[in-house]
């Protein structure tokens, strides 16, 4: 480790600079409709933030904007990642820097196997980071892939299937987490990864996330339901209604939401 910069470890959640910062973020659709109406949020390593909001409140829009989807325009504010303004960057550059989005609705890529896709993605990230071709040796890749698949209880048979093509809802979500485990991002945004999972699958997925959260990774868990938070304990909970964070608090806020629902917040906004 000679010469390497040692990270500054303080108490959990108190890194000097948050890795991901959303500053007064506004996001509009292509027709100009504003969906996200000013979000401020800081997510650091070793932290789990939960964003909880009802359907249609703009959670996926926020996730896409963080990842750089071209159809979701940032009309105001900015996104800072590791001290760098990434607001104008493409999704590829954000991913190469260590941002990850687990999609609510992962897309199928017919003709491209999970293995081939993951190897291409890993090597693209390695190349971007080292500035030269530096592919992961195939035996190492295989060992890592099979190990992660077993850990996440993803059937090995899926490795040679076409990405998300004909996968069940649960398989797709697990493969999203598999991708996260393989790519080892620094901040992972999980957009309703819990929806459509049965309890067993939810446990597996949650433990997959829990294993990665730590000094190397922080997570932003986006959800409609409180259920996933029984398995992934958040440090911070944000209630997200009508494109805004309307209340922030600790894990107890999730319990309050479970009891009272979003209605009281929506009434205030109405």
């Amino acid at each position, binding site marked *: 480790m000679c010469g390497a910069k040692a990270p500054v470890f303080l108490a959990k959640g108190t890194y000097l600079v948050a890795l991901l910062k959303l500053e007064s973020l506004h996001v509009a659709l292509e027709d100009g409709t504003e969906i996200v109406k000013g979000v401020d949020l800081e997510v650091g390593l070793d932290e789990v933030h939960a964003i909880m909001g009802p359907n249609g409140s703009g959670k996926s829009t926020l996730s896409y904007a963080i*990842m*750089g*989807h*071209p*159809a979701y325009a940032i009309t105001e504010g900015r996104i800072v990642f590791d001290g760098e303004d990434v607001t104008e960057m*493409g*999704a*590829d550059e*954000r*991913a*190469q820097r260590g941002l*990850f*989005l687990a*999609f609510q609705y*992962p*897309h*199928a*890529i*017919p*003709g*491209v196997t999970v293995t*081939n*896709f993951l190897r*291409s*993605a*890993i090597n*693209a*990230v390695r190349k*971007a980071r080292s500035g030269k071709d530096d592919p992961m040796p195939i035996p190492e890749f295989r060992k890592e892939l099979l190990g992660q698949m077993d850990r996440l209880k993803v059937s090995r048979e899926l490795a040679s299937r*076409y990405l998300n093509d004909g996968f069940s809802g649960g398989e797709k979500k697990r493969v999203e987490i598999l*991708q996260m485990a393989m*790519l080892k991002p620094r901040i992972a945004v999980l957009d309703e990864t819990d929806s459509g999972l049965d309890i067993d699958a939810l446990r597996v997925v949650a433990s997959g996330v829990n294993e990665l959260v730590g000094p190397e990774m922080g997570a932003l868990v986006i959800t409609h339901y409180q259920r996933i938070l029984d398995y992934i304990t958040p440090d911070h909970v944000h209630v997200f209604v009508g494109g805004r964070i309307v209340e922030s608090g600790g894990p107890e806020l999730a319990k309050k939401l479970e009891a009272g629902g979003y209605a009281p917040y929506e009434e205030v906004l109405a």
Partner: protein
Amino acid sequence: MSRPEALAAYEALPLPDTSEEHWRFTDLAGFDPDTRTYPGGQTPAMSEGAMVDLDVAGFATVTAEGITIERAPEGITFAPLPEDHERLYSLVGWDEKFAAHNAAMWTNGLLVVVPKGVVLEKPLYVRISATGRTFWRLVVVAEEGARASLVEEYASPAPDTAGYSNAVTELFVEPNAKLEYVSLQNLSTETWHFASHHARVERDAELDWVAGGFGSKRGKTRIQNDLNGRGATSRVTGAYFADGEQHLDYDTFQEHIAPDCTSDFAFKGALRDHATAVWRGMIRVEKDAQKTNAYQECRNLMLSPTTHAVPIPGLEILANDVRCTHGATVGRVDREQLFYLMARGLPRYEAERLIVRGFFQEVLDRIELEPVRDAVTAALEARIPQA
């Protein structure tokens, strides 16, 4: 002697123009099949740079000057095509302008006869180098119960070689025989290419055909399969890629004459820049061809908004107990797929590459000969834009 007859037919037939239905999308303006001004005479090193890396049983090269049989396997005919061979012109005659031109002018031909029951383990390979005007003719007879594979590759000595290539292939797949025929067209983008490839498949015989279209400027490739004996099967797998100002034209015809036959044509193509493609498919089921099972599809992927693809499926069914299906699509790279891949760190061009590879995978999977599959894959990959 048929040559003068063919020449007369050629001279009598007008150069097709876009007022003819089959040439509606392929404009030959600026092309003169009689011009002799193409630079010719280069003799490229033909053994070099073959597309397919194969351990072959026989190898022949063709140039404007002649055909060279570099290696011929024992026990079969793999030789220059005699002008008076009995099978000549029985499938492709001279009722069409370019077929007539070939019939009148061809000098370098190859005859392949795989005798009854002979199984050829290794493929045969013929490489055609088109310079100037090249009239190439191939006759293949797979006699009863024979099995063989033949790879035919069209190439130009240089990427800017101008030329006119006119090819005719007549394939005879006799009862119970199996023939694999691979035709890879990788001509320069300054070459006009016209081809008529016609096969007749007899009782319980099987024809497995791969058509790869990567090069040429403009022209037309006609592919016809006659399912002529009960239980015959033909399968044609096509993959094409055009860019720049290229225009590809495939005219395919599945002619079901006998009952209980299967034909399955699947083409996929990608287009970039200002490239255009037209694909016309026709399944005709004659009235005695009951229990026909015929399929045709052509799917196109536009990689630039300035490309244009016209797939035109067609059915003409005279029998009443048949199963015929077809599909034709023109699509673009899906923006959501692209974002999904880029969100994993793949730069745009690499994401696009993966999607394009994925698009072709289905047709690549149909190619049985692994070296051919690899060669077609490599040819496609080479064309997908880099950074």
